[in-house]
């Protein structure tokens, strides 16, 4: 019959229309489909019906890997920047939006592992995350704050060192998995260090013991002095 295809299609739209309401009923006694605790269920593959979000009142949680403009990690334990101004991030940056001034010791003029200045031009940054990926010191990480609109183009969106630096507690709060990996690596390194120290100590002790034994064996040797 001519027109049956259209009617069939309309059946699909009407199904879509009611699906949302059916799900509403399912959550009716439990605070409603739109309450915060069902956000994940509403956004997942099992949901039926619409899953639009009323931004900015409602915001979707972002996954840990989400990346948007880098920031510099400040080590709150050691009270120093993690950055050593090695320049790898500036070299790998595809749009070349990272500008680093390396600190030189005023006396010897040798490089000091501290950035004197650090700029990121957020208007150029493409949020690719390569800087964070290749930083050997875990000093630059990707932020997750994506609401950066400003009324002015030239001054507010070029981030200097103060604006870029965030404490490592902030890093830990947005990247818990990455933070756990760092802690583990640190522990591993500390353990290795301790083992090494222990081994060295043992060696030293053994050497001392050997020397003592030697000294005991040869008491008749004339004094060195």
């Amino acid at each position, binding site marked *: 019959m001519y027109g049956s295809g259209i009617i069939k299609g309309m059946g699909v739209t009407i199904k879509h229309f009611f699906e949302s309401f059916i799900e509403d009923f399912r959550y009716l006694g439990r605070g409603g489909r739109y309450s915060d605790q069902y956000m994940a269920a509403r956004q997942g593959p099992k949901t039926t019906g619409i899953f639009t979000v009323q931004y900015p009142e409602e915001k979707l949680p972002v996954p840990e890997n989400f990346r948007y403009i880098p920031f510099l990690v400040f080590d709150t334990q050691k009270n120093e920047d993690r950055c050593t101004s090695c320049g790898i991030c*500036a070299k790998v940056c595809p749009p070349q939006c*990272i500008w680093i001034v390396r600190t030189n010791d005023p006396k010897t003029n040798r490089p000091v592992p501290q950035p004197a200045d650090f700029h990121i031009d957020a208007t150029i940054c493409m949020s690719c995350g*390569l800087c964070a990926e290749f930083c050997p010191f875990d000093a630059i990480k990707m932020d997750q704050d994506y609401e950066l609109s400003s009324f002015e183009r030239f001054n507010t969106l070029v981030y200097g060192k103060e604006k870029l630096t965030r404490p490592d507690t902030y890093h830990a709060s947005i990247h818990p998995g990455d933070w756990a990996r760092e802690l583990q690596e640190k522990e591993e390194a500390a353990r290795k260090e301790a083992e090494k120290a222990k081994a060295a100590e043992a060696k030293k002790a053994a050497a001392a013991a050997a020397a003592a034994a030697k000294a005991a064996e040869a008491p008749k040797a004339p004094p060195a002095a």
Partner: protein
Amino acid sequence: MAAKAAAAPVAELTGPLAVLKEKFPEAVKPGDFEGAVIANESLVEAATFIRDELGYDYLSSVTGVDYPAANECEVVYHVFSTKHNGAPLVFKARTPRDNAVVPTLEGVWPGADFQEREAWDLMGIKFEGHHNLKRILMWEGFQGHPLRKDWKEAYYEQDNKPFDSRWPGGHFQRGEERTPFGDNVNFPANFDPAVYTSGADAAIYDRVKSMDAAAGGILTPAERNGNGNGNGHVAADGYVGPDQPEENIETDHLVVNLGPQHPSTHGVFRMVVTLEGETIRHLEPVMGYLHRNHEKIGERNTYIQNMPFTDRLDYLSSMSNNFGYALAVEKLMGVKPPERAEYIRVIMAELTRVCNHVWAIGFLLNDLGAFFTPALYGMQERELILDLFEAASGSRMMCNYFRFGGVARDLPAGFVETARELVFERLPRKIDDFERYLSDNEIIRARCEGAGVLTAEDAIKYSAAGPVLRASGVAYDVRRADNYSIYDRFDFDVAVRHHGDVYDRYLLRLDEIRQSIRILQQALTQLPGGEIQTGKKQYSARVPAGQAYGRVEGPKGELGFYVVSDGTANPYRYHIRAPSFINLTALGPMCINQKVADAVIILGSIDIVLGETDR
């Protein structure tokens, strides 16, 4: 430039190239790294031989490479066969740099049309005998050819990244401050930009208006009789129109611009159509409004820096773009990703295909007038896939997920479970829903069936790729024809339809989604554990000198990356065979004798993304 000195020609031509050498012993010489160099005098003859006798009927890529040190330009052709599978046949032509002229191969492979125009535009190589050798991406009147090695862009800083000004003395300075606008813009004498008009538009209008049958534009009345619209009476002069004799009405051809700002063009794209009443007599696509000289940027970048730039080509399917580029560079480096990374790559590429096709179908329906309901149904499924991309790569669209010899990071917890739920439960159900919703709809069928027919011969002739090619009855899919990654392990069919009209392209995309779901189901079940990166990940990839063409079956069609390395940290030449761009070659021929309203859906059925078309 160092490459030119170091590059040794291939020792001996083998396979089909040896046959070619036998046929043209004088003209054919071995090329550097790969392929054969054919003398310009015999190029057309040799190309005809390659097409007819050797069976390489499909021209994939034409591009130029500039070698200032040797003072020559090289034109590189990659041709494939749709009949027998396998690797490309590569041949090259050389020409002096100052007066670069190569005979056109348009007569042998009409698909060379746009690509030769692009090579002229960006590289400054003239193709003798080309019917319309005009600039295609830059504007008419532009000075110079941007892909020449000695050309410098407006905010030129240094030949290669990383720039020295960034570290260690990286005192921030804007590009605009360093080079105030105008400082390196050269005008010819007596040039006033305020009053200048290039005349390019007027030239287009004059040309398309004066198109006659000989030029392949407007058909003669006798030819028009074959018009398949079937809804009108044929007047004495062959005019097909409503049931009224119209001999006495004076008509004229009308030139109309569809675009550049037009909702149907999916971006900034222009179609100059010549109309006779409502019927299109000639259509010419005009593009380049979004041109950013991606290839030049790519040649200034280091290898790894190009990865996020490839995301911005076809921004709806960034994972596939990553894939093609990674394959090309891996070919040069000679690395292979570990098992797990291969599986992850396939999973990502196939999810991208699903994403892209639901989007394409949705927006085709938009073009048809079904305003946004189907598009949003498609986007809903796409949204769930983008969530997966975001969890894995950190970004929904600009994924930047592939690395040479692996992927950027391992799959996060919960990825596989969600993906399984999607591809085993939700997507098959939703695709059935789509089918029920749209496929039998009488309005859609009335509009789409018979519109924009492209025959199998024409599809191959015009180098159409992907769904456009396969909907015309050519079962050519790079995943099967020139196996890459681990596609040979999966059980799937190459979707093919035979009418070559808009409706078949729509159905074919649904078929492809189903096949992608099949691949995904297998890949997710077999996904092994283990490493995701071969060797240590390095921020400066060491790429030995060489040339490589990496191609993947992207959602839009065959996506190829031609990379020439001279052993330094930056690619010497980086070219993209963009399916969105090359598929438009067939747009004009497909639209002839269609109604003007159908031009919109024919364009929609090709499924272009302007980021890739204009590059």
